[in-house]
């Protein structure tokens, strides 16, 4: 009975409780402070940002409140791509010396026409690991749990889960939570059976995998005559960079496997991610680290709360290449009501998230 009580308590924990439950007005104060500092930090060093500001005839000082953010022109992927084609591998976004110790995360596979390379510093990684650990606790990964990471090896999530990249001075999410992380190469879905073999021995409670692999995962389970019950699996996190599963699909897989299906949007271009909480009612994004908007890409104006627009993210913590008002082609609506889980941070609803089959 004692053990159950402890587990129940752990299920309701927060990794950074003060920040995760901070009243919205205080969150916005933090956002504005960080935005002002960031703009001043990178105005001279980020070629792309400097150009955007000059073209709009504004300076960092002109942003006097959080609402003034709409004065800042949007940065799109094609703005960066144009400069990459011209010869700058980071498209004018690098804000530190290339000779300082930065690592570069390579492009996705298969390679796009203009590949995007993302530079990160040690401190960027620290912030990201913190954010990632908050997500793990949010979806109920506890001490002593085992987690199978089945993402491509160069995906940011693989790098954040365990301290393989920078040891001794920093801990990955698994070390902070005292979990065991098992990794499998997730670049190609035909490698899933290998991951399942490992899972069969170690019984992970959670598996992270790219969203498009869910059908292959089911086939592999059937071929190996395994069930999520054999594997003692409690949840799967499906990661994508554009869209989440529809409500119908999510329910279908959840019922078929008898587990929770959590969605996760991961946008490497601005070191951004947002994940479901246990309520599965919108993907939380940490607002002390990002400013999240849903905008009309033509006007650059944010749409009203609850209306659909393009997801636009401002990174408030990165040193190497933070982007301000980076507009993506992910269609979302936002909800800033406090969530049932207790967290006050904004929730993102990708277009398909609440779609039921038969909806017009």
């Amino acid at each position: 009975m004692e053990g159950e009580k402890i587990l129940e308590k752990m299920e309701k924990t927060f990794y950074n409780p003060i920040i995760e439950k901070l009243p919205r007005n205080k969150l916005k104060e933090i956002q504005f402070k960080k935005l002002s500092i960031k703009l001043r930090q990178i105005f001279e060093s980020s070629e792309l940002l400097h150009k955007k500001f000059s073209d709009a005839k504004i300076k960092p000082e002109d942003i006097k409140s959080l609402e003034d953010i709409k004065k800042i022109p949007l940065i799109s992927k094609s703005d960066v791509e144009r400069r990459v084609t011209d010869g700058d591998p980071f498209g004018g976004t690098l804000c530190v010396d290339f000779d300082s110790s930065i690592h570069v995360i390579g492009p996705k596979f298969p390679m796009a026409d203009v590949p995007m390379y993302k530079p990160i510093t040690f401190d960027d990684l620290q912030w990201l690991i913190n954010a990632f650990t908050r997500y793990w606790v949010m979806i109920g990964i506890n001490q002593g749990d085992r987690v199978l990471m089945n993402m491509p090896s160069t995906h940011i999530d693989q790098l954040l889960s365990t301290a393989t990249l920078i040891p001794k001075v920093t801990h990955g999410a698994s070390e902070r939570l005292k979990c065991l992380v098992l990794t499998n190469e997730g670049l190609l879905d035909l490698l899933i059976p290998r991951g399942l073999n490992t899972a069969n021995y170690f019984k992970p409670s959670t598996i992270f995998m790219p969203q498009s692999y869910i059908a292959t995962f089911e086939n592999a389970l059937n071929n190996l005559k395994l069930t999520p019950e054999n594997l003692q699996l409690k949840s799967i996190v499906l990661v994508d960079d554009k869209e989440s599963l529809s409500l119908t699909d999510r329910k279908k897989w959840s019922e078929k496997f008898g587990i929770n299906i959590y969605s996760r949007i991961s946008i490497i271009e601005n070191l951004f991610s947002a994940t479901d909480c246990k309520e599965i009612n919108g993907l939380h994004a940490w607002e002390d680290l990002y400013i999240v908007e849903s905008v009309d890409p033509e006007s650059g104006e944010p749409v009203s709360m609850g209306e659909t627009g393009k997801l636009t993210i401002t990174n408030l913590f990165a040193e190497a290449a933070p982007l301000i008002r980076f507009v993506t082609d992910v269609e979302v609506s936002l909800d800033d009501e406090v969530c049932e889980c207790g967290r006050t941070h904004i929730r993102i609803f990708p277009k398909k998230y609440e779609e039921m089959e038969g909806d017009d």
Partner: protein
Amino acid sequence: MSFSSEYFDTKIETMPINELKELQLKKLINITRHAYYLSPYYHKLMSDSGVAPEDIKSFDDFRKVPVFGKDDLRAEMATTGDPHGGILGCSMEEVCNTFASTGTTGAPTFMAYTKNSKEEMAEAMVRYLWMCKARPGMLTIFPGASFHWYLGFSMNALSYIPMRLILIGIIHPVTISLFYDAIQRFKPEYFIGGVLDILLALEDECSKRNVEPSEVLSCMEYIYSPAGEYITPETRKKIMKWGIKDLFETGGLGDGIEVIAECSEHNGMHCWMDKWYIELVDPESKEPLGPGERGEYLTTNLFSKGSMYVRFATEDFAEIIPERCNCGRTHNRLRVFDRVSWILKVSNKNVTPTEIRLTLEKIPETSLGAFTVMKYDEKMTSLKIKVAYNPEITKDLKELKERVESHLKEELGVDPEVELVKFEDLSFSFHKIQRVVDLTKEQA
């Protein structure tokens, strides 16, 4: 330690051999004791043979410890359902990372690291990388495969030096376009993951784009090949022509958590003696060999208290090079030939395809090292072998046959019967040359 120094840790790398062996023995006794008391599998194995750790006081005594191999490990995994097969020397809570082996010879096995063994392994890797000319600040291409015990750990070591990493693709030609783009865009100085497949695919990629390899690839100073297929002297010469300063090959084992690497002498691979203890035994009887003989090598991991390996039979056929290396490092060097299962028995001698190839590569007319052995019996009296020769530079076939036979006899100590053939007339399986054609199977 200064950045220009040859050794990362001068004291340990050039330690006089007697001191080194004393250190090794101390660690050996320690690890055996730890395995006996804390690992269920080793406890059973040793007590069943009546060996107590207190009995072990010298290298000779250590031979009393029974040998075990990968199949024993797999059997243990299957019967107990324990992924580590009972060789874990710590509790599960102390394990921070687990990697799976590649599983080329059967079901994959798992290697567990504790915090301490991670740091010890990183230290060994840093010394190897430094030996292979990796220096602070070098821009490096590094492939993914964080699931793999070797690469998942190299990232650790690389950040110690520290090097600037560009994380790209996986070690498989399918992602070659990613590698090509990164090299051409960033002009890195170091390339980790330069296994034979990738290097040939890079060359292919250059020719597809009508570009000379040296134009794009000459920015790279050093290439590091993590445990891949052997790179022949011909291929090595071709790669050096791209403008590379040096190419380092390495080897290693998942089971054993062991890495070995060559220095700039390119004459055998060093294995740090304060990290691993290597012994050579007869592949069948597991008895120790005489000096200078080749045999199966056993490895004992002196630092890993997660997955422990004590007298683990690696199934690799090798020799230890006794002379001191010209690079100044006193740690022993290994030359690994083939897997034990590919050994041919000729007049009571063990001969492997790799040894044959190395001999043939030294003769100019047969420098491709292409041959097929006709295995007509399990125990043969002479080595029947078809060898490909280069017709452009061969003047007298009869003289060449005699020369090849006398080289083979001298190097391998067996009686060869050589048939010189054109390259196309060897036995092929798809595009790969069949090194051994097993006639015994075909007759059955």
